[in-house]
């Protein structure tokens, strides 16, 4: 803070205190929704960049290399498990995103907690139903 402090004061910091992690157990559902939304958003953005980089082989190297790289990656078990994570991130981000758009239209502001639990429950159900598609 470059604000002029009119009295001497002790700056406990802002960046390291963000979210008051040491009190994480006291966080309310709305805050958890925010954390999860931001985290999944960052995961998806990172994946988008990586995805375009990997698929770029199709243009820059050629079709055989494209097939070889995709099959090579998919043969790794860890990649398939991570894909479930990606799917989970998308499903939660989508459902919670709908929740946020509802708020923007000033719908359901007073049932925000229930909506958050609903989005968690729905994403859990959808991801569990989707697991076989990724592992088989």
């Amino acid at each position, binding site marked *: 803070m470059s604000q002029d402090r009119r009295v001497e*004061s002790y*700056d406990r910091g802002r960046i390291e205190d963000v979210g008051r992690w040491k009190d994480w157990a006291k966080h309310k559902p709305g*805050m958890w929704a925010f954390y999860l939304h*931001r985290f999944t958003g960052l995961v998806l953005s990172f994946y988008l960049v990586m995805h375009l980089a990997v698929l770029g082989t199709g243009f820059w190297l050629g079709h055989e290399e494209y097939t070889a790289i995709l099959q090579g990656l998919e043969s790794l078990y860890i990649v398939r498990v991570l894909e479930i994570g990606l799917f989970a991130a998308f499903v939660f981000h989508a459902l919670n995103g709908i929740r946020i758009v509802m708020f923007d239209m*000033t719908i359901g*502001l007073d049932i925000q907690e229930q909506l958050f639990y609903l989005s968690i429950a729905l994403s859990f159900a959808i991801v569990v139903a989707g697991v076989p598609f990724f592992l088989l």
Partner: protein
Amino acid sequence: MATTEETQKPDAATATDEETATLEVFRYVPEEDDEPYFETFEIETFEGMTVLDALIKIRDEQDPSLTIRHSCRMARCGSDAVYINGTQRLACNTQVREVGDPVKVEPLPRFDVIRDLVVEMNEFYDRMESVEPWFQPDHEPETGEEYLQSPENRRNIDTVLDCIWCGACTSSCSPAATDSDFPGPAALAKAYRFYKDEREGEETRKRRLEMLESSHGIYRCHTQFNCTEVCPKGISPTEAIMEMSRDAVKEKLRFWR
């Protein structure tokens, strides 16, 4: 019959008011300490004792150097917002026996500490000022000497008018913490109070909306609902911000049509 006796025992204990509570209080005196620390106090409690009562009792009986800002003691002035057991609350509006034991009292998070539980509020007041929280009518009233407001219009701002500038919501809001250009929930709820006031006229309403629409204005709200959870007066700044951003976007779409 032994069971009834057992169940009656704790009741009897509360009736005689012989309970004690442990208070862990954040201490920092700039002239003496390099770093803040926590000091533990044991006090006797009574039915209906608030955290502020407890702190005053400690100051009176145990450590006269304990500093806390307070005035009305009835949740009216907003000077004693502190961080009690992980939530921003008014000390005078929180029962010692209801928040659990020990009671951990800290100054408002993300505000700079001047001494013990007293924080530097100027930055918060700057945020409040940035939304121009004063009445700016377009023109003089046509008839009579008074600015008349319809009861329906007044009802819109019934809750946001209760704001006591305690700073609890702004302390709980993470975008307000990381972005010093963001006015924060209290200021935006205050802006809503004037935005909704019909006596100000269309011109001022447009201007206010434009001002709030800056890239570090209403759109920085991430609907965390922390402000709504901690407000001691039951105001929902989230709701106010959402309504303003909805209106702002509607206005834009209307131009486009």
